[in-house]
């Protein structure tokens, strides 16, 4: 009996040893699914609030990837997998070189922008990033009419590879021989990825030149130059893995690899699920609107922080704005518009709807600028001080209306114009909770000044078809977001708020949804991009602010961050914060210059 056991055991041992020897012959195969199922916590940076639903693709030419962790181009492009020549930093408004070597230069006529690429810059397959890649990326965007291509086609004539390392971006010229818009040209180099020419050609071959198929391809084989590569994704999570051969560890760039080996994003069912995970330390960095976020450290005493320690907790950059539909009865009257805007209690909107995650209008008086120092310096505060209102000024609003002769003539409690009662709806999409709460407070203001305002919250699918139609008469006062921080702002925001180009257009995703027309503001909008003299620029922006605050085509309800930013230091520490003096914006450690934060992270206790 004993003997037989021994025999069986020896056979078993032999089998195990043989199998082990076999396995040793081959390099150990890693199954991403298995690794992703239990990522080592101390090597993984967990996100929340970026990715909702499973990833569609990795194709940087597509605008339908639903791949928030890896692919997002624009003013603060997400540069963990693909990279841009420059990184925008919303704190100081500067563009820092990434793939590019040093600052770009303009020719004297401001029609051509030239930069060179870093010698060290390489794709993840080991080949060099060349000027030809940059040029071919632009050509492809134009050829296949991608959303990037359509967006820049009116401003960028061509991108040319001068030699292997040197790239020139040529601006489209107007009749006077000037660049149509130098701002958009300089934004091009930090907004858009450089995509590998070889991979682009593979993709073109695969779709046989079909533009729709080209943009719809999932691009699973896409090759980037960034520090991370796709590792695993399913309907519960997305995981990126560090490319340990990343070129950026060269002295000419970061000089090291980013700290986390994996970037992972669990796909949460809703905001509350993500909030709970943050609280439990399962999430390191959260891009969610977490209401009353300060309770996490003040009450629960958790190692959780935001960019600023006190309200407004983050760096706000955009201006959610309520537009007046100038076709609505009575709203063509500036007194009515201004009275409503003056009567709204913005302090309550900010304290209740935003739970203080926005500066108040006493702290940052209203203008066309966001609260960043760079933009605030662009207008003369004293010159428009008389025009700015902080809100909750019921008396002033009533006086304004009385003086304009808009009074209640029939005694029903509401003011009339020519015998017709002033009655409006205030609208925002259903489920956008902080906006809904804000709109409620707008409606409450109407009651105080004798103007009937009722709230209305249609579904987003309906809302988006109505407010983008310049001829709609369904919504009277309705909320839309604004441009955040970027190289083309605040010019882009002035244009968005007031440009006549957009007035009355259909399918309008660009701006001026209320249909405001003013030839003078159009001149200013045309002039700003051509202006390099700082004093002149301030003069133009001040005038734009004056016009905006005088005519009140719309009014800002609150300030809001580009990206919400809450970090939990249970595992990682040294996240970017306002007080650390590193000048890194709180942008997910992934967007624009925010990516620099990845190189400072350390483990708690190390």
């Amino acid at each position, binding site marked *: 009996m004993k003997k037989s056991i021994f025999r069986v055991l020896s056979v078993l041992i032999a089998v195990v040893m043989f199998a082990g020897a076999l396995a040793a012959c081959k390099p150990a195969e890693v199954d991403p699914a298995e690794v992703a199922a239990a990522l080592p916590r101390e090597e993984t940076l967990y996100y929340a609030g970026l990715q909702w639903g499973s990833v569609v693709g990795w194709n940087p030419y597509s605008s339908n990837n639903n791949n928030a962790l890896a692919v997002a181009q624009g003013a603060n492009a997400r540069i963990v997998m693909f990279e841009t020549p420059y990184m925008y930093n919303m704190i100081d408004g500067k563009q820092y070189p990434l793939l590019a070597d040093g600052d770009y230069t303009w020719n004297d006529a401001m029609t051509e922008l030239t930069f060179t690429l870093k010698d060290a810059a390489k794709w993840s397959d080991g080949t060099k990033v060349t000027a030809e890649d940059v040029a071919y990326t632009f050509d492809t965007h134009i050829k296949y009419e991608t959303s990037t291509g359509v967006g820049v086609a009116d401003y960028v004539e061509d991108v040319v590879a001068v030699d292997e390392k040197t790239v020139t971006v040529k601006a489209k010229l107007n009749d006077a021989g000037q660049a149509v818009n130098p701002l958009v040209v300089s934004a091009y180099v930090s907004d858009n990825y450089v995509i590998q020419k070889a991979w682009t050609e593979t993709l073109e071959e695969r779709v046989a030149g079909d533009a729709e198929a080209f943009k719809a391809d999932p691009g699973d084989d896409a090759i980037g130059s960034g520090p991370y590569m796709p590792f695993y994704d399913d309907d519960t999570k997305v995981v990126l893995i560090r490319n340990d051969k990343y070129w950026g560890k060269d002295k000419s760039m970061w000089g090291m690899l980013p700290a986390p080996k994996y970037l992972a994003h669990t796909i949460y069912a809703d905001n509350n699920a993500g909030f*709970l995970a943050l609280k439990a330390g399962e999430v390191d960095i959260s891009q969610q609107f977490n209401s009353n976020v300060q309770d996490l450290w003040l009450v629960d005493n958790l190692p959780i922080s935001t960019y600023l320690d006190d309200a407004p907790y983050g760096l706000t950059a955009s201006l959610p704005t309520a537009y007046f539909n100038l076709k609505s009865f009575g709203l063509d009257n500036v007194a009515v518009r201004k009275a409503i805007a003056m009567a709204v209690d913005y302090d*309550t909107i900010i304290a*209740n709807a935003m739970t203080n995650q926005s500066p108040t209008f006493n702290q940052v008086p209203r203008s066309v600028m966001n609260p960043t120092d760079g933009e605030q310096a662009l207008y003369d505060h004293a010159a428009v001080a008389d025009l700015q209102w902080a809100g909750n000024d019921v008396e002033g609003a009533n006086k304004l209306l009385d003086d304009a002769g808009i009074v209640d003539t029939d005694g029903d409690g509401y003011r009339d114009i020519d015998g017709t009662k002033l009655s409006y709806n205030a609208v925002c999409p259903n489920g956008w909770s902080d906006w809904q709460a804000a709109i409620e407070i707008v409606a409450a203001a109407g009651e105080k000044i004798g103007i009937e305002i009722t709230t209305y919250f*249609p579904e987003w699918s309906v809302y988006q078809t109505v407010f983008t139609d310049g001829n709609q008469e369904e919504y009277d006062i309705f909320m839309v977001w604004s441009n955040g921080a970027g190289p083309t702002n605040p010019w882009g925001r002035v244009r968005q708020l007031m440009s006549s180009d957009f007035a009355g257009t259909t399918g309008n995703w660009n701006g001026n949804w209320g249909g405001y027309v003013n030839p003078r503001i159009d001149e200013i909008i045309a002039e700003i991009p051509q202006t390099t003299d700082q004093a002149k620029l301030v003069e133009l922006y001040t005038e734009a602010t004056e016009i905006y605050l005088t005519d009140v085509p719309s009014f800002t309800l609150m300030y809001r961050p580009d990206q919400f930013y809450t970090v939990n230091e249970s595992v990682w520490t040294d996240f970017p*914060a306002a007080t650390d003096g590193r000048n890194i914006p709180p942008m997910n450690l992934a967007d624009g210059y925010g990516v620099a934060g990845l190189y400072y992270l350390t483990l708690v206790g190390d």
Partner: protein
Amino acid sequence: MKHILHEAFRSPKFVTGFVIFMAILALVVFYPLFVTDHPLAIIGQGTFFPPGIYVSVYDTTNAPQYTMMLPEAEGNRIGAKLGDVEREAMREWLIDFGIPRAEIDIDDTAKLMTLWDAYYDPALRFQGMTSARQKYFARLDASLEGLLVMEPRVIAVPNTETGAFEASQSIELTDFVNVNEVANVRVLPLGTDNFGRDMLTQLVSAIGTSLQIGLVAGTVATLIGLTLGLMAGYIGGLVDDVIMFFTNLFTAIPGIVLLILISYSIGQENRGAVTVAVVIGVTSWVWTTRAVRAQVISLRNRDHVNLSKLSGHSIFHIIFADILPYILSYVVMAFILQISSGILAEAGLSILGLGPKTTDVPTLGLMMRWAMIYSAHILNKWWAFFPVIVAIALISFSLNLMNTGLDQVFNPALRE
């Protein structure tokens, strides 16, 4: 009738349910007589004020002051800022800084504060300390500012001419005011919600609305169910077949699915409380129909019904005089349950965002929805949702108790 009522009030279950229900009803009726605020008025700038008595800080300075020498006052004052957790934390920081443990006596406030003031440096971040912890110490340090100061606090008013501050009043450590003599005191027994609204006022109003919704939904469902059940049961034949065809059809489709689809297609702008109640009513009549029909079938060949038929009475007369009284007890009980399930259905719909449009009138479901959107349950703001849950539970509990009690009265087989 009198006998039934008499019997019912001898059933302890019915009485308990009835008393709870009446108490709720009394609250809904009488509370607005005392607190006349609009239930949706935003009174707080900020979210989720905890329950308590709010005293105007400004007005306390104008209220008559009394001097009281309370021995425990100083201890309370220090204890409010410097509890055990804070003392431990200070020791931890001082040890990390390099002070020997033996030299730190955390029970001696004066000594601890002296050590702290001498060594604490907000810029220091020790090995292994997170920046969140560093900020905690900075906040702690700030909160200890002036903790041991015994001098009075001075209230200063700016001079309108020079702009310089001039002392107008000094507040001693022994000064007290009587809350009854402060001009503005607001009691918020349940705090405020995410909009800064008084929770209790809103809750009472919401219970009223929810009861109305339940009543309307219950009435609609019972009327439809009763009518169809009577017709199917008494007339029979083709009418029965057709009615039962639809009844079975609706039985097979879960009510909640229908409810969601109808609510969604109505659109939010049209969803008032009454509309939602009617929608709930028209999707929950099937079981009443089936039960009524079954009872009517067993009744329609009874002698007194046949007698009535022979006497030439009309169908309506027979149904109302000879059949309805016999099933009335069941109908009343079904009605009570329909009210209860109507209230629950509204809460369910509202949580999904398909209930009555927000901030028109408060309902129990909407209150829970907003509490959830603003993460009250994650942030432990229990007063924003727990009272609502208790209210819903109490309403359906009382209605169900009344139902069970009545059941025992009507059905001798169930009597204990």
